[in-house]
């Protein structure tokens, strides 16, 4: 039987879960919370799936583990953006630490676990793992073929379909909603079927599974699941989507109940999310603002993606599929600062010392940084008059660590949890036609098991505190270089007295595979051409 089980609920927030528990849609979760502890779980900056889950798995912040976004700069001196993968994690994870101490592990559907580390146990990666190559992601060799024998096994519905992924962020037609929600309901069931099979055939000490449909439903269907947005007279279609969302959460509750039952009474079970969620309508065109302020220039022949006065049904797009635009659409002779991806909420300041004709030298960096911060803080919403940007975080404030230099120079927190678009636009702010869900820093933490307090509601925990707790529960020493602290308050004092926390010397920063290996020589113009060609291939849009 496992000693510790992590049930990840991507994007889960008590704002949604509490009403579902009160209405009886999630009766087991209510029971689980009553018999254990609950707390809000503070995410990292940015509150984004890849860096946040990596922080939960390492007990360290992004500057210390090296994952900042879905995408990754290839190196400090590169504007080249590629998908982040497990080779970018420069720290030990709970999976590798447990395995190194003789424990077996199972990890299902967590992001940034491809290529799978060589642990003693089973890993099926999640995140941006294309379904066509799920076989290559499964560890150990042969696992994929064993899973394929399961009646419900369907790589196409388990792993990434990029077209579906984009719908969560960019929206979709109303006739697509029902199938989209139902797909995520089936998908969670398929992951549960894999976990059940592995728990029965591959006994492990530390087990984790991540259900990512929660976040997906938040993004697209917030107005159907938050009671605050219920309409008095819903249409038949609105009722149908609301019922499908409710069915998703009923099934999720049953899945959690089954996992807790399979784990048995001797296991510590932790439910955690990487970040929370909340409603958001505004979209801030950050590169348009940078252009307006004279920090950014587009090449002459690129037309605005969005124009003011467009058709009423035109909902603003964020540009998730267009992450490389900054390379081939920007005039690098006249650009000082730019946003590369909408997900990171980050702004990069061009470093002149690395070859840019413009940009910041060491003497002007602080001045440019100051002007950007002051300008962003002064920006007001044209309708409400309130600040658009709630906070601007500098790199050294939030990303201190060995990988700090790979992070954006500035990271934004928008006032209403709104989204950023990186696309060219002649308006700075736009409003979505329908309210959508977007990330918030406050996720969830629930735990129950031997020695854990019962019925306690605790002050906020940090996401980096979860790894020490899980390692302790799995009877693995806690490395002394984790940023997260061991959360004593989760346990009865007598339990900790009886079995104190063991610590071990941490492994520090691990070499990232490929890091430090020089890339072939590419001048800036060549690199722009490379990305333009990738666009032609369809690698980037």
């Amino acid at each position, binding site marked *: 039987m496992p000693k510790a089980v992590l049930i990840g609920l991507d994007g889960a927030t008590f704002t949604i879960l509490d009403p579902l528990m009160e209405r009886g849609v999630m009766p087991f979760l209510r029971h689980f919370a009553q018999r254990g502890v609950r707390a809000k779980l503070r995410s990292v900056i940015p509150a984004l799936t890849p860096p946040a889950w990596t922080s939960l798995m390492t007990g360290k912040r992004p500057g210390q583990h090296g994952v900042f976004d879905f995408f990754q700069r290839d190196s400090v001196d590169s504007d080249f953006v590629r998908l982040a993968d497990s080779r970018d994690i420069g720290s030990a994870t709970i999976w590798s630490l447990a395995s190194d101490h003789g424990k077996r592990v199972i990890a299902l559907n967590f992001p940034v676990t491809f290529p799978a580390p060589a642990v003693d146990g089973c890993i099926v990666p999640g995140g941006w793992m294309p379904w*066509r190559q799920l076989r290559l992601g499964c560890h150990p060799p042969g696992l994929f073929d064993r899973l394929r024998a399961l009646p419900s096994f369907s790589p196409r519905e388990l792993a990434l379909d990029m077209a579906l992924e984009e719908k969560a962020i960019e929206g979709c037609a109303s006739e697509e909603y029902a199938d989209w929600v139902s797909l995520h309901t089936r998908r969670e069931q398929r992951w549960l079927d894999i976990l059940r099979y592995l728990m029965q055939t591959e006994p492990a000490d530390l087990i984790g599974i991540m259900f990512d449909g929660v976040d997906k439903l938040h993004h697209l269907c917030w107005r159907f699941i938050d009671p605050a947005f219920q309409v008095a007279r819903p249409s038949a279609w609105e009722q149908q989507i609301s019922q499908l969302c409710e069915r998703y959460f009923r099934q999720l509750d049953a899945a959690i109940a089954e996992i807790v039952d399979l784990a048995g009474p001797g296991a510590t079970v932790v439910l955690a999310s990487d970040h929370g969620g909340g409603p958001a309508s505004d979209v801030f065109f950050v590169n348009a603002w940078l252009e307006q302020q004279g920090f950014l220039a587009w090449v002459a022949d690129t037309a605005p993606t969005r124009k003011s006065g467009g058709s009423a049904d035109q909902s603003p797009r964020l540009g998730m599929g267009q992450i490389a635009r900054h390379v081939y659409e920007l005039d690098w002779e006249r650009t000082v600062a730019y946003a590369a991806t909408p997900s990171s909420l980050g702004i990069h300041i061009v470093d002149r010392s690395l070859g840019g004709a413009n940009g910041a030298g060491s003497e002007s960096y602080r001045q440019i940084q100051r002007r950007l911060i002051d300008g962003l803080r002064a920006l007001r919403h044209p309708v409400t008059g309130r600040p658009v940007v709630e906070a601007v975080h500098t790199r050294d404030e939030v990303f201190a660590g060995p990988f700090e230099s790979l992070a954006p120079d500035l990271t934004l927190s928008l006032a209403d949890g709104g989204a950023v678009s990186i696309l060219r636009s002649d308006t700075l702010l736009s409003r979505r036609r329908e309210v959508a869900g977007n990330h918030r820093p406050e996720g969830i933490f629930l735990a129950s098991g031997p020695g854990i307090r019962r019925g306690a509601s605790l002050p906020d925990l940090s996401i980096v505190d979860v790894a020490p707790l899980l390692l302790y529960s799995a009877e693995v020493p806690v490395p002394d270089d984790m940023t997260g602290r061991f959360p004593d308050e989760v346990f009865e004092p007598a339990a900790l007295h009886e079995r104190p926390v063991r610590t071990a010397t941490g492994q520090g920063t691990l070499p990232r595979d490929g890091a430090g290996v020089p890339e072939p*020589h*590419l001048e800036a113009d060549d690199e722009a051409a490379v990305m333009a*060609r990738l666009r*032609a291939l*369809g690698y980037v849009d």
Partner: protein
Amino acid sequence: MTWQSEAQVRDELLDMMSQLAGDWEYGDPITPETRLLGDVGLESLDLVVLGTSIQQRYGRLPFAEFLAEIGQRPVQDRDVSVQELVSFVCRHSGLTAPTRAR
């Protein structure tokens, strides 16, 4: 890295692609001439992740530049065969790339 002949690399990649193609219910045999986009139906993101897997096996390779070179071709030739992949791996595996300078 252990040196391998082109025939060994070809056999390994054919084996890997054949296994993957079986998962997609692709009926035809995978040969050196099989094109990954046109014949097998891979998407561009698949190529990126396939590159990660290949680099896991053969070490760091200039895969992005390889994709870029493919993208530069005329539309009708914008594809990559298994043999091209083999040649690319053999050409670059084990090479020391020059220092990057910008």
